[in-house]
């Protein structure tokens, strides 16, 4: 074990024998990692947006004209306590007329209707779709539940909304992971090739070590150590650069109707990036010895 550490330490010292090659390698790996990181950042934020928006199913509940407002209000209270409710807005007939009037002209155009208000009481309910695949059935159940409320005349619900949610789910399943995988592959190839290329500059060294009787692990341990160092240094640098980029762009989408504050990669993603890059660098060093 001590010997292994010593060999690793030697690997790190030896990196300075080829400072240029090392510098090139680290910067190329860093840049590849930055590219991957930008993708991760993008996917992470898109995914967050999706998660925030996807699950909402919206219902509009209309009560009978002239329903007892006392009872309707009591029902509203019951509705407000329902599971998975995300948002609820209620309209008395007066509020509805006011809104309609405002929508139409903003000048009290329908004031003359006030005495004989034709509009019913209504409520707008948005529910988060609970996790699981039975969202359709669940929504149907909810619809039925709402329809049988006393004095409710009609419940509208928009199945397109459900489609959208389902589509997003399928997109994030069918695109995001394959794209991530492809991305990881690309980064692995770039990083691996860069490392292998820099191994080529050390081929003579490896040959000589083997000629004087070094065991394979004696040759490899230092290379693995320097591979690990390259990977850690590069991914560290890459995360630093990403953070800078993020600070620069954090609020760039934070304007009126979008209000999207770009969030940085969560810890797991950072660790993932570091891990993958380091692993690939070490694998590159390992394979490089065979060439």
């Amino acid at each position, binding site marked *: 074990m001590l*010997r292994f550490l010593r060999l690793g330490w030697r690997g790190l010292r030896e990196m300075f024998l080829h400072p240029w090659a090392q510098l090139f390698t680290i910067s190329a790996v860093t840049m590849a990692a930055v590219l991957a990181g930008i993708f991760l950042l993008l996917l992470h934020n898109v995914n967050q947006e999706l998660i925030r928006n996807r699950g909402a199913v919206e219902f509009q509940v209309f009560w009978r004209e002239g329903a007892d407002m006392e009872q309707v209000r009591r029902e509203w209270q019951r509705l407000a306590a329902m599971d998975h409710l995300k948002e609820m807005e209620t309209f008395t007939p007066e509020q509805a007329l006011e809104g309609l009037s405002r929508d139409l002209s903003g000048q009290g155009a329908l004031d003359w209707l006030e005495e004989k208000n034709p509009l019913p009481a209504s409520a707008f309910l948005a529910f988060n779709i609970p996790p699981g695949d039975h969202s359709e059935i669940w929504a149907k159940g909810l619809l039925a539940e709402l329809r049988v409320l006393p004095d409710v005349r009609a419940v509208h619900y928009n199945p397109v909304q459900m489609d959208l949610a389902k589509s997003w789910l399928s997109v994030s399943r069918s695109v995001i992971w394959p794209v991530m995988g492809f991305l990881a592959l690309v980064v692995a190839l770039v990083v691996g090739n860069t490392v292998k290329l820099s191994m080529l500059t050390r081929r003579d060294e490896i040959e000589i070590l*083997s000629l*004087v*009787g070094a065991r394979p692990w004696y040759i490899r341990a230092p290379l693995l150590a320097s591979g690990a160092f390259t990977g850690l240094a590069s991914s560290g640098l890459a995360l630093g650069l990403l953070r800078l980029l993020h600070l620069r762009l954090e609020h760039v989408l934070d304007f009126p109707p979008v209000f999207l504050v770009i969030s940085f990669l969560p810890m797991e993603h950072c660790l993932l990036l570091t891990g993958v890059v380091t692993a690939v660098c070490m694998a590159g060093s390992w394979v490089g010895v065979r060439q």
Partner: protein
Amino acid sequence: MISPCPVRGKSLANKEEAPGKPPRFTKSGRAGTEFGMVEFKRVSYVFGSSWALKDVSFTLEKGGFLFLTGHSGAGKTTLLRLLYAGLPLHRGRATVAGFELHKLRRRHVPELRRRVSVVFQDFKILPQRTVFENVALALEVRGVTRQHMERRVRAIVRALGLESKSYTRCAHLSGGEQQRVAIARSMVVNPKLILADEPTGNLDADLTTDLMNIFKQFHSYGATVIMATHNRTILNMVPDAHILHLEQGQVAETTLPVEQDEPHTEGLL
């Protein structure tokens, strides 16, 4: 002068197996012959379509000294490469340092190379490392402790007149100095079998004499030496040395005892 057999330092070549000990396993390519002996039986080697070695047979007893001579391209380096498993042996049988080369497994190659010290014709030193580091490499690879290493490296570097260059990168050395580094690296492990390929090509007469004295000293302490050379003057420097003269890959002349049994066997078939 350095001492090839220091009293305290154990012989490194034998670190893992004492000479004369019976071989532990033969499947892997370990031979039943005595450690330190070199034996070739009808060995041939082909590069593509040209024969670099053809039916070479000889036996060098433990502690022998052999000069390999021959014109440029005769096959001297090829023969030496076979000995340290720098080339795989496909035709014929050979035994060296207790290993049977024709059965040698990949994972036993490092072990073989720790028993055989080689001075390469093209030096094969690391240009970016210092003289000290290059020489110490041979010990480091064998897992020698730091203090022991320092002492031995200093001794051999001094013996070869490289003291003042100890901490110079090898890329900054003259041709002769590089050659001496290569020699120092092979000597520092106190080898029992030395293969030297043209070790005096870049050295002047005085240095050559000094160097041959070092080789002779190792030899007198029991090391087996095989040296490929063009330099006729050094042939006379070792009175009891054998000579194997190669011509186009074949043994043209030799002072070694030649076994005649193999062609005989062939005649019987």
